[in-house]
């Protein structure tokens, strides 16, 4: 497996994993508060919609010339990556509260328990729509990740394999513990995803713009190192600045 392929699988795994953890929290809240029948119906319906989107959009993307695709995907990831990194750096330096899956779960659960009971087609409508919307939105992000990463690197199956591995892991652990994955290192995962997205974004944007990398695919490692170094320097600078601003 080449450097690019390894990065592809790892990036798809991490980025999809973050989305699956968030989807799991919503489905658990819907299931525990409104009953598993409606939550699982919502999960199933969203999965069908996502499968249709994947079946329709997947082949269409592979028909686009690779350089045009790299230009488009590179620009998209280059915009997305720094947004993730920005939040991760703000969290790591203490300027933004850490993402707390337990708190989100408690909030979702309280809202779901307080909602009125309306039954449609034999399922509790609130539980169904909560699970459906949560899985659909997080799932659309996973579809986007798999299609864009996979098509720009020339292998949608490899990206899908990374996402599938994340799904199996998150669903398996979720089924076993029946609780939000609060112990999943989500903040560290988000930092890593931001780094990966930015690295791929820079790499493909440069290729898409018609410039050549010295060392070809191996340059990804150099870009990765640079993005990691820049991010840690920024975290340290901001952390120091924040601590100096706190009155003693």
């Amino acid at each position, binding site marked *: 497996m080449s450097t690019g392929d390894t990065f592809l699988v790892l990036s798809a795994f991490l980025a999809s994993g973050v989305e699956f953890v968030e989807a799991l929290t919503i489905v658990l809240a819907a299931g525990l508060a409104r009953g598993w029948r409606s939550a699982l119906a919502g999960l199933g319906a969203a999965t069908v919609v996502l499968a249709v989107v994947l079946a329709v959009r997947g082949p269409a993307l592979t028909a686009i010339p690779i350089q045009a695709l790299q*230009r488009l995907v*590179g*620009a*998209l990831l*280059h*915009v*997305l990556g*720094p*947004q993730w*990194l*920005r*939040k991760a*750096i*703000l969290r790591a330096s203490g*300027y933004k509260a850490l993402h707390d899956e337990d708190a989100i779960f408690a909030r979702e659960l309280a809202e779901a328990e307080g909602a009125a009971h309306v039954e449609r087609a034999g399922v509790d409508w609130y539980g169904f729509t909560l699970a459906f919307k949560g899985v659909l*939105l997080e799932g*659309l*992000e996973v579809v*986007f990740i798999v299609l864009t990463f996979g098509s720009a690197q020339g292998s949608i199956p490899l990206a899908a394999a990374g996402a599938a591995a994340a799904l199996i892991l998150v669903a398996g652990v979720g089924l076993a513990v029946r609780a939000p994955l609060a112990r999943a290192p989500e903040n560290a995962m988000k930092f890593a995803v931001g780094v990966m997205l*930015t690295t791929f*974004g*820079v790499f493909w*944007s*440069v290729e*898409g*713009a*018609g*410039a*050549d*990398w*010295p060392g070809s695919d191996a*340059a990804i490692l150099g*870009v990765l190192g*640079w*993005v990691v170094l*820049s*991010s840690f*320097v*920024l975290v340290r600078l*901001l952390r120091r600045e924040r601590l100096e601003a706190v009155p003693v």
Partner: protein
Amino acid sequence: MRRLAAFGRFWWDFVIGDDWLVAVLVVAGIGATAALAAANVAAWWLLPLAVPVVLWLSLRRAIRSA
């Protein structure tokens, strides 16, 4: 119409996120890289160099507005 607006908002939030300046600077950087490459000048270094600069500017904006 409401669904269309919600769909548009989803993609705006997903891609552009909290700071539109990042998108503007990235697109400008890609344009500059393409222009250099078209003029047969080595251009691979420009976007990596832009990463910490874009992040720093965006982080300062985030901290100022907090």
